[in-house]
């Protein structure tokens, strides 16, 4: 098994990375045989590109010599749409960005508008936000980890992951009536308080039942020798490259950089909560997988604290006054939250009207995906699938 990663300096001076296949340049007599590189188009209709990603891949046999992501198949002009909606109206569009973790999108947008307009969120609403965001983080990581098994040919972990995700979706449905496009976190607070009674019981039940279920499901993959063979040492992303490309989230933390927006640029209730920023030093596909699994455990830890806080912070206002017709003064603001995929940031410019003058969405999937052409070279086709899966892009978020 080849594990080393090679770095080459190309004529343009750009540092490029790649797997063992870069050494597969033919030498000597083999030049006499006329060979050709096979150019294939992986996607946009492909089971493992997690959406409408198209990769222009150059193959030398099974080796990938070049990989170029082609994006934009799901572009809907969300940033332009924002300019024609009031601050309050645009929120429902944010659900459609990272549709696997819509709560994070809601939160990123809401936090940015609040910063721009100087709104103060009621404490109860902050608590609700943390709870739904962490639940959503677990759900999103479950999708990621489950489909990762699917990418590598194991079908069962996917079903087990979706079993647990279903419980979370049920909980979120009880909160806001939707399973994917929540629009629950609003500018200035949340739509309504968390339900009492049965929801609370099921929430606590989930916190008790989920960790052993996660262990069981993790065992299916991380104790499987074939899974380890396929991921350990594959698609290594060194920390300096990860930082240079601006990656964030599990992709960055898998390379050993402890950057988590919840810690580094704290927002909401997170400074009061006790949790670890999970990192793995190796930077390979296995590390990124392990970071996601461990983050789910950390989210459970956060949710347990929130369960106590639900009794301590009394129910009350959950939406700041004046949030509906918010009209920020002319100016600009950038705020970001830690989505399951990394730093999800919103940059807003206001001209003093009730609509944004300009909105820029910093989507973590887009930035993380850009690293693919750097680390995807020199691996086999099968490894390329493993690398894409470990980057875990969501195309609503990449293409915006």
């Amino acid at each position: 098994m080849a594990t080393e990663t090679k770095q080459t300096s190309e004529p343009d001076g750009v540092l490029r990375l790649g797997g063992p296949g870069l050494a597969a340049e033919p030498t000597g007599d083999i030049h006499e045989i006329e060979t050709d590189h096979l150019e294939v188009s992986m996607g946009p209709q492909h089971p493992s590109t997690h959406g409408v990603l198209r990769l222009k891949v150059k193959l030398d046999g099974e080796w990938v010599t070049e990989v170029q992501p082609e994006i934009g198949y799901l572009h809907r002009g969300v940033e332009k749409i924002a300019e024609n909606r009031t601050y309050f109206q645009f929120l429902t569009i944010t659900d459609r960005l990272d549709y696997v973790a819509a709560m994070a999108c809601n939160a990123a947008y809401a936090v940015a508008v609040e910063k721009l307009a100087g709104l103060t969120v009621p404490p109860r609403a902050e608590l609700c936000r943390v709870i739904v965001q962490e639940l959503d983080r677990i759900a999103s990581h479950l999708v990621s980890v489950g489909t990762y098994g699917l990418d590598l040919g194991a079908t069962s972990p996917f079903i087990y992951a979706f079993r647990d995700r279903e419980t979370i979706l049920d909980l979120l449905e009880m909160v806001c009536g939707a399973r994917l496009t929540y629009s629950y976190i609003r500018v200035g607070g949340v739509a309504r308080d968390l339900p009492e009674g049965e929801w609370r019981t099921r929430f606590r039940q989930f916190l008790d039942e989920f960790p052993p279920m996660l262990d069981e499901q993790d065992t299916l993959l991380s104790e499987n020798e074939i899974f380890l063979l396929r991921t350990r040492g594959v698609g290594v992303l060194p920390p300096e490259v990860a930082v240079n490309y601006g990656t964030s989230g599990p992709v960055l933390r898998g390379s050993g950089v402890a950057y988590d927006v919840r810690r580094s640029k704290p927002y909401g209730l997170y400074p009061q909560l006790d949790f670890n920023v999970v990192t793995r030093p190796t930077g390979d596909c296995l590390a990124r997988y392990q970071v996601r699994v461990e983050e789910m455990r950390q989210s459970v830890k956060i949710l347990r604290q929130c369960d106590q806080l639900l009794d301590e912070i009394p129910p009350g206002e959950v939406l700041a006054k004046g949030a509906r017709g918010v009209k920020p003064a002319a100016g600009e603001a950038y705020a970001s939250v830690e989505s399951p995929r990394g730093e999800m940031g919103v940059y807003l410019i206001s001209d003093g009207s009730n609509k944004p003058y300009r909105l820029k969405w910093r989507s973590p999937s887009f930035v993380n995906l850009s690293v693919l052409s750097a680390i995807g070279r020199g691996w086999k086709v099968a490894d390329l699938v493993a690398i894409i899966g470990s980057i875990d892009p969501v195309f609503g978020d990449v293409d915006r």
Partner: protein
Amino acid sequence: MNLPITLTGIVEGALAPLGLQGLTPLVVYLLDALIILLLLIMPVVTILIWLLRKMLGFIQRRLGPMRVGPFGVLQTIADAVKLFHKEDLFPANADRVVFALAPFLVFVPAVLVYVVIPFGQGDGFVTKDLSVGLVYLTAVTSISAIGIITAGWSSDNKWSLLGGLRSAAQLVSYELPMTLALLGPPLMAGTLSLSGIVAAQQSVWFVVPQALGFLIYFIAALAEIAHLPFDLPEAESELVAGYNVEYSGMRFGLFFLGEFANSFTICLVATVLFLGGWHLPFLGGLPLTSWQTGLATVATMALLGGGIWYLNWRRAGWTSATRWHWLGYVSAAILAAIVLVAGLVGFISVVITLVKTSLLVFVLMWLRGTLPRVRVDQLMSFGWKALVPLGLVNFLALAFQAATGIPTGWVLNLLFFVFVGWLLLFAWRKRWAYSAVS
């Protein structure tokens, strides 16, 4: 077979007035093959696919097919009917002739194998007991590789081509260890006829003195039929569907059926060569006479059917599931009637063979529900660096034993058993340590 009217008799009677008695053996073989295909292989494959989907469903916490027929038994037939309705598409630049033929090159060999398989005791349960049965078997199973490669090539699709290339490398590589492992049983039995090999296992199944060979055969055969964890030629998540990506309709269906027929075949061959065929453990062949066999079968069927129905009824009450209980009784009664009326001595031997095969098929499904896929270089290095040397050592030890009488094969397998035991102990302790931590 002690039927009052034999197939040969009927055919001879029909051909005699035409003066074509000379053709009798040929016609009988053709009819035999047809009967085996229609009455045995097709239903078995159908049930097998259903079973696989059910089993996968249970492994994956689902119900599996439930809608068509009782418990979804007829789902496969519904799928096949659907496939027949589909348009038979040819890609614009495909090599039309090769493209059209490739599915048959995969499906037909999968069926041809059954010609030499002894399903039960006696001549009635094997179409043709060739004296070189094992050679025929290895020869015929290799043909399907050609089908897969040509399918990949002729589709004029880059993904299919990659799938075809992968299968070329994979099937050729794993042919070697598989054949090396298959050489073991004839060395002990002293015959290449499959019936002869089964007969030689009356006292001890070959899986005991040749456990290593059995394991090598089973792993190599998994790769040979492109079953998980070696399903690289059609790796869905990498190559979309590999060699069969351009196929539609029943041509795709033939690949699909051929694949399942193959997974049944390798289990059947493993049963015949290593698991003692129709022999029961510790009994050393069938001690029962004809009517005792019949009675035992009836009793077994009734107990089994009644038991299953009772469990269902206890669990669910009078529901849509238990409403179908009569089907179990009817089929049991029909089977019992066949046994009693025809008085087939060997009938129960067929049941034994099929039960053993089904257990192996279950292992296959279990693997399918559990394992991810290996990478192409890992597949190659495992085949050439592990299986081929092991197969050679195993074969040499067995050959030396057969030639000189010194039990080298037994020694090797004893070592193998010790190794497996140590492995299991290690795994158990690791598991224990893991659960103690978390």
